């Protein structure tokens, strides 16, 4: 353990620590269970982590810019409810099934974007602390979904919708494709474009950013909006998966998993530093841990304990490296 720790401290800072941790975890899991490395099991892990992983991609931008978004889970439920309503509504109105599904997806994207924008505007123009804004909207989105569904669930009337959710082009689950595609796109934006640079600048010292003629408000607003869009994507995928939306169950604790993925991935909670691929690794790490605990038969009630320890451990190691 000590050897592993000191090894972790020597590898190049933010960049590879998360990868190394995941590699070690994978080896340990493979030793503990012969089933772990089976293709089907690995695909399963990837699928499971995709939903919160996609949200965590957006969360990376928010946290790096110096903020936080607690509302993502409730927002996913809210957006999902809207999407199913649009799906069923347009389907029943006689639209072709494909068009209805497209409408639902568009609705989810748009609604997610709008919700994120609302969070961002409250933070930047309203000058309210991100924690408070999103704590508020977290309650608000959940309550609206409960109200719409009367605390029950919305079932989709389209079977195509559900089929898409379990589709696996080239044998790889659709959500995994989307996770990797979005991660690649956002990693590029984060690492190579002006906007990515500005996000880090704003998060590391917003006053310096202001004096450097950077539009601080727009930069932060964009981070929340991107996160909203990611919630839209994730929400559609998970609704497809179950072909329904449970207003009280969908997205519960997603905010915690997303934030945990970002932090395990090496992003600094105080802003300014982080990587998108680190977040993907963080999300997969959480998935691997769950999977391993299931396979060795540890009570699901204890899994939270392990997750908690991993989060604290990740931050502890970051501290040591500074």
């Amino acid at each position: 353990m000590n050897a592993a720790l000191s090894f972790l401290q020597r590898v190049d800072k933010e960049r590879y620590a998360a990868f190394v941790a995941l590699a070690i975890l994978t080896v340990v899991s493979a030793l503990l269970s012969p089933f772990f490395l089976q293709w089907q099991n690995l695909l399963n892990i990837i699928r499971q982590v995709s939903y919160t992983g996609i949200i965590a991609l957006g969360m990376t931008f928010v946290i790096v810019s110096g903020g936080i978004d607690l509302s993502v889970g409730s927002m996913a439920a809210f957006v999902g409810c809207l999407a199913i309503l649009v799906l069923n509504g347009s389907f029943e109105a006689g639209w072709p099934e494909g068009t209805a599904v497209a409408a639902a997806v568009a609705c989810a994207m748009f609604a997610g974007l709008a919700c994120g924008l609302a969070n961002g505007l409250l933070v930047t123009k309203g000058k309210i602390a991100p924690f408070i804004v999103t704590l508020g909207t977290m309650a608000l989105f959940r309550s609206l979904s409960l109200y719409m569904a009367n605390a029950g669930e919305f079932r989709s009337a389209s079977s195509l919708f559900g089929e898409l959710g379990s589709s696996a082009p080239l044998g790889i689950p659709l959500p995994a494709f989307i996770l990797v595609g979005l991660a690649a796109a956002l990693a590029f934006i984060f690492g190579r474009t002006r906007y990515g640079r500005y996000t880090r600048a704003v998060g590391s010292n917003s006053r310096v950013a202001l004096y450097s003629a950077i539009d601080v408000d727009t930069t932060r607003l964009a981070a929340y909006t991107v996160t909203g869009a990611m919630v839209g994507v994730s929400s559609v995928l998970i609704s497809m998966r179950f072909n329904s939306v449970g207003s009280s169950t969908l997205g519960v604790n997603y905010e915690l998993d997303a934030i945990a993925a970002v932090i395990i991935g090496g992003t600094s909670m105080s802003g300014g530093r982080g990587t998108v691929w680190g977040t993907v690794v963080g999300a997969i790490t959480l998935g691997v841990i769950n999977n391993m605990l299931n396979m060795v038969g540890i009570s699901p009630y204890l899994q939270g304990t392990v997750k908690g320890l991993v989060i604290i451990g990740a931050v502890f190691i970051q501290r040591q490296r500074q």
Partner: protein
Amino acid sequence: MTPPLFRVRRLRKEFAGNAVLRDVDAEIRRGEILGLIGENGAGKSTFMKILSGIYEPTSGTLELEGRPIAFDSPSDARRAGVSIVPQEFNLAKDLSVEENVFLGAELLKLRRVLDRTGMRVRTAQLLAELGANVSPQDRIEGLSAAQKQLVEVCKALAFDASLLILDEPTTMLTRREIDRLFALMRSLKARGMALVYVSHKLAEVKAICDRVMVLKDGELVREAPIAEIEPPEMARCMVGRELREIFPPKRKAVGPVVLEVRGLSSPGAFTDVSFTVREGEILGFAGLVGAGRTQIAEALMGLRPSSGVVRVGGKEARARDAKQAVRQGFGYLSEDRQGSGILTGFGIAENMTLVSLRDYASLPFVIDRDKEVAKARTWRDRFGIKASNLAAPLESLSGGNQQKVFLAKTLDPGPRVVMVDEPTRGVDVAAKQEIYRFLAELAAKGAAVVLISSELEEIIGMCDRVVVMREGRIVGELEGNHVEEREIMYMATGLRTGANA
């Protein structure tokens, strides 16, 4: 003979294998002010950080009154009687001045309860001794950089130390505050305290120190009693070559007016300010700390609300925000390098292009890294920035080198109106010369330069015309031969007013 207060033997410090201090032997004596000078990155701050327990030496020993000692932490060093005014401010910005002054060493009564009155009284007393125009209850957040510097000094003085280290404590201060500080240092010395004074202001070193040590590339290259060494000789030891004529020749600007400011006011900061700067001109702004010079620059940069008329090249140019100001051709080097200037976690190249990033985008948004690094390299060579590589985070650079990066960042967009506020803060003589030349060159190429400085020597050496401010108003303007120290000080302190051209 009693041993010296501190003795270091073969002190060595390496960062990731790079030796920054190479086997330094030195002693620090009671009742003496030791001057420590050297180029940017010579290792002065590193040395002082070891003495004050911030860094651990790689090898070598420390002796306190003849006994070996090792500090595990700054508080450890503090208990042993070492107090430091660090080069970079280290204040909690949400706390008040008095809370900062006694942070970690609060005065107590009845053992557990904070002695608030005691701390307030003591802080007020120290502030008054330094002539600081600050109240103990002010929050750090709202203070100017010079005021923060004075608070740092108070913090170091607040408890009884046997060694007081001052790492470039006067970079932001004007003559009056410096005189007070020096008086205070002399009285501490008379009481038997040992003091170390690190500075690039060699005339001040000559005035206040009893002995001088020169560091070059981490080695002690010269040590002499003050009587035996003059500032030119100090400079020569530091940079290893002869330095003549720090200031480039002055030119009288005859070009058209580039910047015109008429009746500019900003509530609570300055009132009814009018001035012009011509093409090719370097206009000086003199005044005491708090006279409102910085605020004018901030207003022109769109960083604080203002009313009045601002024109650049005849066109209306009062900016709403910094982005607009940059587009209109303004460039601003703020006085507060850490607070509003550089990102300490960012690399050198990333810092330099922060304002001008638009110019490095190949596709509309994608940054062309090669172009960025190439440009950063030219800046590094131009200003002689000492750093292992261009991706090194700024926190690993010495203070003076950080300042050079900041200057490059400000100038990279190629502004038409360049406003520099304490541009040579903490840079060594050789780099100062280079920066002055560069500013003069910029002006010669047609920029209008506004130089705000508390170093009168700098203003007098660089400017053909000087505006003097007091309490938020312009109280006079000097030109040509009238630009000299006494005149400026008379106006700045209110002993005389009026134009004198």
